[in-house]
């Protein structure tokens, strides 16, 4: 049974169709890469799934629950179940790392305990464990804004982990990172996928990363799903079609590549 069911999903911004009747089924435990050029609707798709924005048409359901209809508390709980990490990390720069990670627990807290920023020992231990998995414990009391991009993204993953999510969305998580940090972040997502059995849905710009990590690749163009299949079926011709590279004489994947040859993968 598919965990995530997207049917006829559309989002219009004025006359632009950012996502145009997308229909997808994503099995539990899959590692799915979404590719496509800038403006193809990848981010909008993820934001629709997390309900950061509401769809114009269509529906998204998870384990049989229609999440496009959720409101109030139920909506906040869905967002907790559906963790999200961002290209620009979206941490609160002025708060320390541990508090940033504990933000992953806010869906369980009332106004009163949030005002005092009070978290239980179990929650603090969870945050410490998540930071430990990403080798970030030594930075726990440092302000998030003082960390490097790669470190910030690992803090963001830790925040996502303490949400105890059922699915993990990542919106171009490595687009602002150097190749070494990009590899660490992708390995962390792979570990989460394999060890925690979480479904991972990640937007990527780099094709070789998508081929390396994603068992299944979805390609979007102008809001529509153009390709959906295993990585090896993503041929050069398909890629040209997706990126509209007809005019470019030698469209070269290596130009956007961020792979580091011979780099030891870092376990998360």
């Amino acid at each position: 049974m598919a965990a995530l069911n997207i049917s006829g999903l559309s989002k219009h911004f004025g006359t632009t169709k950012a996502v145009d009747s997308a229909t997808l089924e994503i099995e539990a435990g899959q590692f799915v890469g979404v590719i496509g050029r800038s403006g193809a609707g990848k981010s909008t798709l993820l934001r629709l799934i997390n309900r950061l924005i509401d769809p114009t048409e269509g529906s998204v359901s998870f384990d049989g629950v229609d999440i496009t209809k959720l409101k109030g508390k139920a909506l906040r709980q869905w967002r907790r179940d559906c963790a999200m990490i961002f290209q620009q990390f979206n941490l609160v720069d002025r708060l320390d790392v541990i508090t940033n990670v504990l933000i992953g627990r806010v869906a369980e807290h009332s106004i009163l305990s949030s005002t005092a920023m009070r978290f239980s020992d179990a929650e603090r231990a969870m945050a410490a464990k998540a930071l430990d998995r990403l080798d970030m414990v030594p930075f726990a009391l440092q302000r998030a804004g003082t960390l490097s991009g790669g470190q910030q993204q690992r803090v963001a993953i830790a925040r996502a982990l303490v949400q105890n999510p059922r699915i993990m969305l990542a919106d171009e998580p490595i687009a602002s990172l150097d190749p070494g940090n990009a590899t660490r972040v992708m390995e962390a997502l792979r570990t989460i996928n394999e060890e925690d059995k979480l479904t991972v849905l990640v937007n990527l710009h780099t094709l070789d990363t998508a081929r390396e990590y994603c068992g299944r690749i979805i390609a979007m163009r102008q809001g529509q799903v153009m390709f959906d299949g295993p990585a090896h079926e993503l041929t050069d011709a398909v890629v040209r079609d997706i990126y509209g590279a007809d005019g470019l004489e030698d469209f070269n994947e290596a130009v956007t590549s961020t792979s580091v040859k011979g780099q030891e993968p870092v376990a998360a």
Partner: protein
Amino acid sequence: MSIQHYEVARYKARHPHLFTEPLEVRVRRYAVWGGFIALFIYCLVAFDFSPTRIFIGVQRLGQVLSFMFPPYIWTSWGEFAPIVEGLLETLAIAFLGTVLGAVIAFPLSFLGAKNINRIPFIRHSTRRGYDIIRAFETLILALIFIRAFGLGPLPGILAMAVSEIGTFAKLFSEAIENTSEKPVDGVKASGGSRFQTIRFGVMPQVSPVIISILLYNFESNVRSGTILGIVGAGGIGFLLSDRIAAYKWDEAWSIIFLIIIMVYIIDWLSAKIRKQIIGEFGGTK
């Protein structure tokens, strides 16, 4: 990701600093809060802030408010003209004071900005200069200037301009310091001179902030300009204090209403202007 009891204990033992703040931090926090609350209560007691006094005061306030009715209406132009003149004079004082202050403060603000003036001694002395100017309240400056320049709008304008120099120079130089270095590097890398990096890299970033500060301070000067007249530095305030002193409360209330209407119109206009010039500006980043 779940957590077991033994894991909580283990993490607590290994990283206690992630669970509780150090004792000294907590003690300091309680001490600061305790001191703050004690000071607040002491002030209330010292100024005899008793409920009975408040209650009696509110009753008298109702009496003063009742003088509003029936509202006073000026019947002849000869009677109304000085009021209009006073209102316009207040506007003019605020306008001239704001513009004069801004013109002098603008160059000074660059001297006080860390990213422009790299010589700490000059920067710090300029900044202390702003602080000294700001220590003088406009009203006190007005009283001093009245003694020197005589009664009327001139001392009012000067008082406003001088106090705005301190405020504007501080706010402008903070705006300049909050600009991003990136466009500056871009201009520099294209072969721009020091002046050109400021003109093309810094100015476009600060000008919306400066315009916004100017408009806000003009509004606020229109409001505070009404007070200047009370000490004799021109404007509507003189007429207002005169009516109150003569117990003509009905006319005083009508003047107060006119002031409120004028301030409201200025606020509305400046919001329009701000939107027109700055558009959807989200602050310097």
